[in-house]
């Protein structure tokens, strides 16, 4: 089926996979043998193909098959450098979680098949109105939890921060750029297009989960030291934002505000597209930095902007885009989502206004925290003095990697400035998925802001970008005109001791205020011990802190322990005495005979 929704997702898949492929040629050259490289490339192509299949297939079974292939191949890619034990563990968690998700999806498909007794999407769509309300809710819940596990929505996000960092960078850029989006595609296709949204409670549920995953994702992104884990957590946050837009459009559809539903769907699709681009870019930069410094711990890096200027520039563009700074594409989609909230609030009734208000403010909070997180990431990795000799003698990465990054960076800028035309196309897609004819609707694409008062100029991205450009030049001219020259000298070190690279602010230090502000959720652990030469002189000072992985500690570990405990308890069924075994047979026989008329 090649309707607009599938074409859009195909576009998203290929726009991220292409640079990743180019990137992978030189990225893998280093530590793998020729055969392994070939295998990795083949797996990559199969992975991209399976994602393309997932998005275009029209039959439930074919969907499940390609879904399975996608999960398995991505598992293989995650554990591709099987040498270190962490990647095997990450792969294990990943494969278990995806299969739990697929189990939910299969359950939902079976119920749908029961009503439609055919596997084809169109047939199911045609009979979807006959499905009774509460079964529809059950199907929705199953589908949502199934796809949410794959998309990394919060309670089920546990695998994402483990799986993505372990995979090679170009693979994790595709995985977090696009693979998560196939789960979103699944949600849109099955819940909106096929099942049809009836009650607003669905949208509200999705929005609640989205807000939680936004906040958790961004707070953990602030706390983590591994560069790729930061990006993985920020993918959770961006998935939250996309789901926020999606939930909003579902709420509007159930309230029959079709104009707003299409608008928020545009915002969500556009953010999905932008996130695929700038997250892919950031992962490629992370890969470049990993290749240059052989480490992923940002506290060991620093000063890379002088050694790797181009990667630094591209990473800066990516960081600006993801923290929604004006001229770039991240800003446009987040700006549109916020506006969707405002317009929604204007039309919605009573408590809905308050709920939308809270969601909008949480979204703004996430935006602020995301900006903080990426300032920290960019600042600590690229700026100031290098903190380890690896970082010291880092060299610029090869041309094909830089070209891939350049391609994606240009895309972020292009998608930012020419947002108006692109949203024009996306509005058709959104209209078709929401099942509404949007020909009558006029979205003020040029201005991208919807106001009550007509006739007043509205700010639009190209106008904003133009103004910023003009004023930067003006500022530069002023800067050039005045002043009496420059002098290069050491950084200010209060005058008496030589400022080393150990005085710089590290990532943990940068996130300290956030750790204290959100300690009710992060439960930070802190240990300090001072070895004192004498009462006054402290010889050495050890400081250790980490945050408690709340979900893992309080939800997943107890569950896993319980499962194994009950399995051990199960072993007592087989104690070895033959009398007991015969007793089992006799008891089953007796039970069956007694209850025979019930069966």
């Amino acid at each position, binding site marked *: 089926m090649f309707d607009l929704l599938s074409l859009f997702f195909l576009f998203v898949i290929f726009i991220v996979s292409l640079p990743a492929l180019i990137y992978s040629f030189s990225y893998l050259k280093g530590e793998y043998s020729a055969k392994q490289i070939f295998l990795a490339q083949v797996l990559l192509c199969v992975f991209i193909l399976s994602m393309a299949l997932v998005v275009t297939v029209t039959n439930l079974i074919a969907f499940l098959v390609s879904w399975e292939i996608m999960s398995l191949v991505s598992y293989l890619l995650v554990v591709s450098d099987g040498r270190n034990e962490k990647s095997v563990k990450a792969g294990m968690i990943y494969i278990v979680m995806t299969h739990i998700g697929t189990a939910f999806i299969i359950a939902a498909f079976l119920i749908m098949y029961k009503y439609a007794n055919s596997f084809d999407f169109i047939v199911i769509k045609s009979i979807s109105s006959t499905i009774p309300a509460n079964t529809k809710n059950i199907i929705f819940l199953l589908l949502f939890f199934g796809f949410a596990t794959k998309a990394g929505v919060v309670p089920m996000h546990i695998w994402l921060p483990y799986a993505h960092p372990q995979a090679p960078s170009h693979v994790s850029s595709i995985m977090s750029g696009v693979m998560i989006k196939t789960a979103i595609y699944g949600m849109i296709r099955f819940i909106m297009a096929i099942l049809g949204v009836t009650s607003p409670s669905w949208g509200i549920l999705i929005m609640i989960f989205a807000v939680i995953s936004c906040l958790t994702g961004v707070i953990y992104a602030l706390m983590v030291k591994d560069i790729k884990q930061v990006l993985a957590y920020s993918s959770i946050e961006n998935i939250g934002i996309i789901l926020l837009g999606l939930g909003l459009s579902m709420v509007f559809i159930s309230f029959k505000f079709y104009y707003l539903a299409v608008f928020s769907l545009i915002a969500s699709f556009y953010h999905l597209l932008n996130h695929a681009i700038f997250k892919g870019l950031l992962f490629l930069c992370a890969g470049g930095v990993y290749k240059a410094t052989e480490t992923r711990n940002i506290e060991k890096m620093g000063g890379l902007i002088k050694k790797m200027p181009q990667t630094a520039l591209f990473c800066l563009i990516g960081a600006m885009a993801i*923290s929604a700074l004006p001229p770039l594409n991240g800003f446009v989609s987040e700006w549109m989502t916020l506006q969707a909230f405002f317009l929604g609030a204007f039309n919605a009734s009573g408590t809905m206004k308050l709920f939308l208000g809270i969601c*909008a403010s949480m979204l703004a909070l996430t935006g*602020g925290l995301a900006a903080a997180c990426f300032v*920290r990431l960019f600042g600590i990795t690229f700026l100031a003095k290098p903190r380890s000799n690896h970082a010291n003698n880092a060299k610029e990465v090869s041309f094909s990697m830089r070209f891939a990054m350049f391609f994606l960076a240009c895309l972020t800028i292009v998608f930012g400035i020419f947002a108006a035309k692109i949203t024009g196309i996306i509005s058709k897609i959104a209209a078709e998925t929401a099942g509404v004819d949007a020909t009558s609707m006029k979205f003020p694409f040029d201005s991208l802001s919807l106001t009550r008062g007509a006739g007043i100029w509205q*700010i639009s991205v190209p106008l904003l970008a133009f103004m910023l450009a003009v004023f*930067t030049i003006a500022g530069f001219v002023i800067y050039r005109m005045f002043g009496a020259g*420059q002098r290069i000298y050491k950084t200010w070190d209060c005058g008496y001791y030589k*400022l080393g690279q150990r*005085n710089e602010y590290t990532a943990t230090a940068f996130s300290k205020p956030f750790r204290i502000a959100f300690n009710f959720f992060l439960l930070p652990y802190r240990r300090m011990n001072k070895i004192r030469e004498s009462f006054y002189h402290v010889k050495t000072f050890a400081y250790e802190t980490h945050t408690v992985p709340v979900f893992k500690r309080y939800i997943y570990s107890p569950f896993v322990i319980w499962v194994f405990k009950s399995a051990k308890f199960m072993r007592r069924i087989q104690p070895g005495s033959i009398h007991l075994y015969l007793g089992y047979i006799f008891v089953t026989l007796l039970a069956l005979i007694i209850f025979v008329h019930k069966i």
Partner: protein
Amino acid sequence: MLLAFAQTILFIAIAPLLSGLISKIKNNVRMRKGASVFQPYYNLIKLFSKEEVISDTASWIFKITPVVVFASVLAATILISDFLSLNSAGNFLALIFIFALGRFFMTLAALDTGSSFGGMGSSREMFISSLVEPVLCLTVFAYFLNGHALSFCSVISAIALFLVTLAETSRIPVDNQETHLELTMIHEAMLLEYSGKSLGLIELSSHLKQMILFYVIAWIVVPVNFSEFLFLGHIAVIIAIVIAVALVEVALAKMRLFRVTDFLGFAFVLGMLSVVCGMLGA
């Protein structure tokens, strides 16, 4: 178009005057003579003529930050001027994001020089600004819900915005502007490495930013369009805000950094209150 351009020039001119006025009032209240109202202008002129010292570890980001900050603030002034008036949610929101752009580059530049002051300043600045954003968004939300009328809801959102401006423009309860004591300075810590004309540019942009925020509060409270020459109401409100800020600066002492969450939490609750009132049409 021309009017808008004249407005921006006017804003740039008046902005430093406001800070001078605030310090003048503070000194008078403390029974001191204090520097003249035009002291900020003298500072700027002096700075623009001085030589600039740049640290060796700084990269090109350090050099372009003053220009970017200045450009973003100028764009913000255009935004609130008559050319793109504030009564559309899009413009108001864009304002928040433009401030975010300026802050992003400022914090990066602070980290760039590699001194622990810069790191401390940027981390705290980011911490406070991320707590400010939801309140800003809520006030925009309430304003947009309530429409352009003076009502209970718009007054509360103005107060919330006032608290936020105290945080944004690093006034006393959140951050102390004058001090160089590394424990207390947030905004100052980021500018530490700057000197000469780049410092001048950044000082000018922070004055301008302060001016814009005061004007926004005035805009919410006085429901009249700038061009109707009834903006005397705006000037009156701005002067009232200036006096209020000066009094707050004198009366209160700087809060511990982690009390700021409660301070901004209170602002957030005020914002919520204004949304509720807007919702009930109060």
